[in-house]
């Protein structure tokens, strides 16, 4: 079994009203000095098999085709050791 973590984040320059509201929430709790908050998504994926190169290719294809919207988001694939 191969375990991977995919992180999807908004591209730079894309407005993130949710992140902004969360930043406001942190300020309301008294956390000072929070310059900005950007909200993203994390997907933990388990793949059958042991071929890491194949897994990486497959995970990238998953990001390109569904998990990330490349108009607004970037993604990062991380294989667990």
């Amino acid at each position, binding site marked *: 079994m191969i375990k991977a973590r995919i992180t999807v984040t908004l591209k730079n320059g*894309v*407005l993130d*009203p949710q992140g902004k*509201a969360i930043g406001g929430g942190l300020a309301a709790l008294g956390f000072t000095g929070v310059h900005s908050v950007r909200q993203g998504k994390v997907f933990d994926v388990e793949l059958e098999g042991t071929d890491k190169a194949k897994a990486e290719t497959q995970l990238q294809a998953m990001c390109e085709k*569904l998990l990330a*919207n490349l*108009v607004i988001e970037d993604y990062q694939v991380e294989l667990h050791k």
Partner: protein
Amino acid sequence: MKSAVILLPGLNRDRDMIAALTKIGGKPPVTVWQTETEIPDVDLIVIPGGFSYGDYLRCGAIAARMPVLDAVRRKAAQGVRVMGVCNGFQILTEAGLLPGALMRNQGLKFVCREVKLSVENAETAFTSHYSKGQVLRCPVAHHDGNYFADGETIDRIEANGQVVFRYTQGTNPNGSINDIAGIINEAGNVLGMMPHPENLIEAAHGGNDGRPLFESALELVS
């Protein structure tokens, strides 16, 4: 003047859309379920609003990967008119049939109210029964209608006249760039819009400003 309405789990404006097409077009549209790989021979395909797949992942993301969307893509490439309203618009952007993306409303709230739209381009297959600059009343009901595209794309669609409807008179409900409410593809046969023209077609709705859109889309086709 045959039309089809695409059905996906979680859509909830399908009945309103079917009623509008039936009342204005004179006959009911065929309905096509998400797993179908072929769409019957029609002149207009409509993807209605709602919350397909519960808006999971991103609004319209899962729906856009269903088999029926491949069929819609093929029909669109052949020049068949395709219209997506609200979630339908989100699905069309997710499917790559329209540029840009619909993001969370700037005010973070679900907005259900009437807005004013200006007709920016009255020379499309969907707006020929309006006049340029005409201001319409139209309801909106959405949480993710904040149109976004990169600067280059915005410049291109603005220059090409692909912005068809704009929120006007300070009624932009979601913070969308350039007050964009509806856009059309470069070929001019795929329209997406956040407002609901199907909900303003007769006296019982309190107005009929949405009606000419359906008359345009249905009448001019052979």
